[in-house]
């Protein structure tokens, strides 16, 4: 059993793990109640799943010339997922789509100068 067989088995394990994490992210996005919790499932398991799949691809290709491109894919995911989630969460909060009774800590309302707990009739009166 040479080292290429070991790398192949490791790559297969990585690919399976990544596909399972992607499935978990999809289930979370389908089942969670609002945008903020869906973003949680859209970023954390999804980014880890993609990184693990790219790692499996690198183990399977075993070509140093492709490592740069694969590292670029992983780097883009690490760099862009927090920014995109931040902007989506902020836009959702400012558009009033977040159910504030579900929040444990709410620091953005104080920053925006709004009441911390929204009255039930606030959406209709404004």
């Amino acid at each position, binding site marked *: 059993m040479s080292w290429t067989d070991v790398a192949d088995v490791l790559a297969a394990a990585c*690919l399976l793990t990544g*596909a399972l994490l992607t499935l978990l992210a999809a289930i979370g996005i389908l089942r969670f109640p609002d945008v903020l919790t869906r973003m949680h499932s859209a970023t954390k398991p*999804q980014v880890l799943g993609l990184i693990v799949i790219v790692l499996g691809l690198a183990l399977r290709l075993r070509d140093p010339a492709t490592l740069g491109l694969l590292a670029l894919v992983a780097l883009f995911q690490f760099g*862009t997922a927090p920014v995109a989630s931040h902007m989506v969460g902020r836009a959702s909060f400012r558009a009033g789509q977040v159910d504030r009774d579900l929040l444990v800590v709410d620091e953005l309302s104080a920053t925006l100068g709004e009441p911390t707990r929204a009255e039930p009739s606030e959406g209709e009166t404004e």
Partner: protein
Amino acid sequence: MTVVLVVCGVLLGISALLLLVRITLGPTMLDRVVALDVLLAVVVCGLALEAAVHQHTSTLSILVVVSLLGFTGAVSVARFTRGSDDVDEESP
């Protein structure tokens, strides 16, 4: 490796179907954007899976481009979502 391809392909296909359900249901545009972002990541995963099983490198540049595409889409929709008509948002 064929078994891995089939199993991972089925898992990714189920994920894509669940995400399509969320994109169809999604009460707000931001829900759809989040789900679309993950759907693009599923596409990246599928391309990487196929490249890994067949050991070719011709789709690697597509991986880089698609992984950036989801980010630009999410940011632009989040930036311009306040004027959208999906909810009764507060007036500016």
